[in-house]
């Protein structure tokens, strides 16, 4: 089969036909920062953190298929600053109190803020009023921390394949909602899987918060994406 030839930041890469820029980058050992993307789920392109530039156009690397001869810009100063500003917007838009969060240290939003050395967001804090809701017997939905990446909408299913979560309302009022009857049937294992799929501390399995000590959590020692960058060098 003919491989597609393209470049990311000048590095020559090869892709299978139909692969997205994100998938092809990964196969070529190139890290493109992302947040709403989750291995095994259909990409949603909702967070735009993976935005890359092709020619003069900006596109989400997780949804855009690679084309022959594409010249992709990824880790360049203006794109990195735009990604940092997206992370900052997500921080001010919700109530992200990292010191009180069970997901701290394992949180991908926080990890990206660390990666970009976000010391303070450039936008004013919104302090929205949001609720915490029980989702069946094993899960909590912490709306304060939800970034609406739609990973749970795409990924949390009942054993017979029905989606438990969905999004309601639009624009600034948009939020994640769930079906109470389906949620009541979620097992403890399914709840743990849902918590792992959530990039932030919005979906929490009860009774397992703060189990891993500080220093041993996922992003305590190494930045997010460093597994790619170590391989490359």
């Amino acid at each position, binding site marked *: 089969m003919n491989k597609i030839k393209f470049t990311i930041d000048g590095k020559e890469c090869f892709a299978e036909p139909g692969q997205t820029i994100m998938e092809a980058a990964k196969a070529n050992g190139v890290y493109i920062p992302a947040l709403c993307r989750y291995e095994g789920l259909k990409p949603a392109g909702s967070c735009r953190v993976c935005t890359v530039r092709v020619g003069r156009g900006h596109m989400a690397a997780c949804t855009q298929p690679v084309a022959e001869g594409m010249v992709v810009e990824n880790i360049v100063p203006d794109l990195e600053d735009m990604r940092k500003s997206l992370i900052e917007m997500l921080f001010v838009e919700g109530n992200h109190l990292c010191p009180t969060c069970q997901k701290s240290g394992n949180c991908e939003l926080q990890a990206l803020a*660390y990666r970009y050395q976000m*010391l*303070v967001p450039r936008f004013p804090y919104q*302090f929205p009023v*949001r609720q915490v809701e029980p989702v069946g017997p094993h899960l909590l939905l912490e709306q304060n921390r939800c970034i609406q990446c739609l990973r749970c909408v795409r990924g949390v299913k009942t054993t017979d394949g029905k989606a438990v979560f969905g999004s309601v309302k639009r624009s600034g009022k948009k939020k994640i909602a769930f079906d109470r009857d389906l949620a009541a049937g979620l097992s403890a294992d399914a709840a743990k899987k849902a918590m792992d799929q959530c990039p932030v501390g919005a979906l929490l399995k009860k009774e397992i918060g703060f189990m891993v000590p500080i220093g041993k959590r996922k992003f305590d020692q*190494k930045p997010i994406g460093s597994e790619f960058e170590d391989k490359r060098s």
Partner: protein
Amino acid sequence: MTKPIIATASLAGCFGCHMSVLDIDAKILQLIELVEFNKSPIDDIKTFTKPCDVGLIEGGCGNSENVEVLRDFRKNCKALVAVGECAIMGGLPAMRNGIPIQECLEEAYLRCPTVDDKIIPNDEELPISLDKVYPLHEIVKIDYFLPGCPPSADLIWEALTALVGGKPLGLTYNLIKFD
């Protein structure tokens, strides 16, 4: 050459960040060689006696006294540093930001089962609570931010020595943590 002068204050904070300053352990002897302290709870100097170079502020602004102290620091310090999550984004005290202040006071002083005299304190000596807890940079210009709850002693040491030594701030991955 005179030593750089440092002032510190804790506003709507828990004093944890000040504890973290003391956490630099034996390096505190080096610190005393390096800088002079002015207004600070550490040496108990209550008012500014001279202009300072660096002001370290812990905690956000939750009442009128916090605002007054913060403005006083801005007037008397060349550089202001927001130290810790509360100073940067309000932190734990900011959890009241979604609740109207009247409701907060009623919950604490009228509906609380362990309070005997059920009155909302209203003495003119008391500072007035603000409608919400504000990050410092929304009240005055802040020059530097040190995140963490608390910021680690290493981060405070690195930042402080760089600042008074006029060196660029080189923050490694392990120093920047929000918890």
